[in-house]
């Protein structure tokens, strides 16, 4: 079952080759939304590892974070404050944090397995 999300990712990426074109003005908002989505996915994986995974929190988190990140960046552009950067720093930081926690978990699992084998 681990491969299902990866297949989903590939299916979604098909959009790249479809004849849809968005105005280039939206490039920065889109990339921010993507970052927020990434953050949610890694957050979900981490929650799953810690056994705290709730699909409703995950689902709402994904949708709200994605929209909010883009909306915030747009608001920032309108009032002349670079909220884009704030969102990038926070979301990027969280992605790294979650990744390091996930890595730590895998490493612990691996060393536990090794101990058990020996």
């Amino acid at each position, binding site marked *: 079952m681990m491969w299902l999300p990866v297949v989903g990712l590939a299916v*979604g990426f098909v959009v790249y080759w479809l004849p849809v074109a968005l105005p280039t003005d939206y490039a920065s908002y889109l990339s921010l939304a993507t970052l927020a989505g990434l953050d949610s996915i890694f957050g979900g994986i981490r929650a799953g590892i810690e056994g705290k995974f709730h699909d409703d929190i995950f689902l709402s988190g994904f949708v709200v974070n994605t929209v909010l990140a883009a909306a915030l960046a747009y608001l920032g552009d309108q009032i002349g404050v670079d909220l884009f950067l704030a969102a990038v720093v926070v979301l990027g930081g969280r992605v790294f944090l979650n990744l390091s926690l996930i890595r730590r978990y895998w490493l612990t699992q691996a060393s536990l397995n090794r101990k058990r084998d020996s």
Partner: protein
Amino acid sequence: MFQVTALCIVLGALLGLSLKTYKRSIETGVPSGRANVLKIEYRAIKESNEKMRREIADYRKQIDDLTGKLMTGTSGETLLKDELVKAKIMAGTTAVHGPGVVFTLVDSPKLSPAETDRDIIEQFMVHDKDLLAIVNELLVNGAEAISINTERWISTSSIRCVGMTVQVNNRKMSQPFTIKAIGDPAALQDAVMHQGGPADDLVLLEMITVKKESDIVVPAYTGITQFEMGKPVEEPGNRN
């Protein structure tokens, strides 16, 4: 697991879209952050341009008033006035109205938005040479006054390609282009639209529309009219 998969589809789509959009924004030459700065600069320049244009119009009106005052009371008053009006139409410094045709040129609606090959995309765009060919054909067929968008065609006018825009009389403009020409409407329309004429490709790609009008206004030339190098040659007949 099902939700995670569904969200991964969305994430994949977002990723694809943002990659594509960003790639396009690089290809069009304006990075996303820079666009806003350029917008502000553009607005400022446009404003100062408009201001200067108004000043030119003001000065021109002053000149008109002064020459008007100068001429009243002299014996050849009406004759001079007629000559002045003719000269002004010829020079393009006054707006002209009368029967004529209006051409509208747009980038071809037949271009598929998925097309990425620049060479093919360019085939579907309005170019400086299209405008030049049409204006030339109109002049040959007796057009008395021509304008492209806001720019009046005068004796020193130019049309050329500047990046993604076309520059007419040193003013940059992009599609849609509206070419107005005063003259015999039927003759002018035929001159441009006849088979084998300058608009052949444009007709094929649905890039040009034409309308005959009984009364159109062609605007006056608003650019500079300073001649620094050339001086009129003294002709024997002109000496008093």
